[in-house]
């Protein structure tokens, strides 16, 4: 008996697309989400770490990293993989602050592995999400000021980049002896700075977050699954936690995120 067959033209085209898809730089999805969604925990770190924060005198969050541009910004619009030339590095530079924006669907890759993917839905449509990636990369990843951005030939993108210096800060302590501020390399403080999906900023308790993650993981083991693979759904989805002021007692709202 003859079985139904996939058309040769579809099979050939898809095979090529699959090979290309796999060969493309691997998305660092955690980092992608971290920078692109702008709603997850580290986003407030980003908010307080930007050059804008330093330039306008906005205080950097305790535990956050202050990034200060020390050269003029280089801007431009490019297509495909290109090298952005920043020129000689100032003596006080210890990194390069970069913001990339997709103009067409595709992906953009920075030295060190940071990749942002831009689907068509990211650029248009009712549920469009920010289509940028922000990162600070070490000078060693851009030899002689040559910053290589990887992209498919048909992808268009813009860049904003400058040499920078980064300075870390310590967490603060509230009246109850609890640490508060941004997640840092040493981990999360007792009260973690966040921006909620509705734009509200404040702090969530680390203990609340840990309980929420455990609950979601437990639920995913018995029910919530990805509709395609059947795998447990994203453990971070759908949570709602109390949002506090830095005193850890005054509730100012609810923290929700994607």
């Amino acid at each position: 008996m003859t079985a139904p067959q996939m058309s040769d033209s579809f099979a050939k085209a898809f095979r090529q697309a699959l090979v290309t898809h796999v060969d493309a730089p691997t998305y660092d999805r955690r980092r992608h989400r971290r920078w692109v969604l702008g709603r997850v925990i580290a986003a407030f770190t980003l908010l307080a770490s930007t050059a804008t924060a330093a330039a306008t005198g906005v205080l950097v969050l305790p535990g956050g990293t202050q990034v200060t541009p020390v050269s003029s910004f280089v801007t431009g619009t490019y297509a495909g993989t290109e090298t952005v030339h920043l020129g000689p590095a100032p003596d006080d530079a210890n990194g390069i602050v970069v913001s990339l924006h997709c103009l067409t669907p595709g992906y953009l890759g920075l030295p060190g592995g940071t990749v942002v993917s831009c689907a068509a839905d990211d650029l248009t449509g009712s549920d469009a999400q920010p289509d940028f990636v922000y990162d600070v990369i070490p000078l060693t990843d851009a030899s002689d000021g040559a910053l290589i951005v990887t992209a498919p030939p048909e992808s268009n993108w813009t860049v904003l980049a400058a040499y920078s210096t980064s300075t870390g800060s310590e967490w603060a302590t509230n009246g109850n002896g609890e640490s508060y501020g941004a997640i840092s390399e040493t981990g999360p403080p007792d009260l973690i700075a966040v921006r909620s999906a509705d734009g509200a900023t404040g702090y969530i308790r680390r203990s609340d977050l840990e309980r929420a993650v455990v609950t979601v993981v437990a639920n995913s083991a018995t029910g919530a699954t990805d509709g395609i693979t059947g795998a447990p759904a994203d453990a971070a989805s759908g949570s709602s936690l109390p949002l506090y002021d830095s005193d850890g007692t005054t509730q100012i709202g609810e923290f929700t995120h994607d």
Partner: protein
Amino acid sequence: MDATSIDETALWQRGLSGDGSAFGSIFDLHRARVYRHSYRLLVDASEAEDATAIAFLELWRCRSSVRVVDGSVLPWLLVTATNSARNLNRGRSRYRALLDSLPHESHHRSAEDEALNDVVADTQLAGALAQLSSIDLQLVTLVMIEGYTVSSAAPILGLSAGATRTRLHRARAALRRYLGHPTLALYLQSSLGDAS
């Protein structure tokens, strides 16, 4: 483990390291089975092509958690194609740009196709399968249609062997009710042919 599974094990190891050509070879190995299963559920050539494509793209996306059975990713692909067929719009939205770039031929049915469709893509069978729960459909796919053992299917579905047997018994009874056929195995054999 036979020579084919040994070869697939090597391909999968290469694929895990990001070797696109290895994924292309895995597609060559399993595309016919995955497509035929998708077609069985959807009874539409273009939709079956999309469901098949989504299953292979998911294989890459979820590569770190794919469960391999006897050196093969085919059972995982079949289960994922089953889910893709049931959630086709969701899968399409995840890979819209890529899928939109692929050529779907016009599938004009010849008299031979029509005759074939009566046998291979029995809409009555598709309708009966559509009434099963997701987990039961996955189970029926692997064990009753594709011929995997209960002990091979159970880990893929996250079930114990005992629970798998119980579910399979119930799913078989449900299919018998839906199809109204006294000898289900014979019906499946006549409708689907040899799974190999």
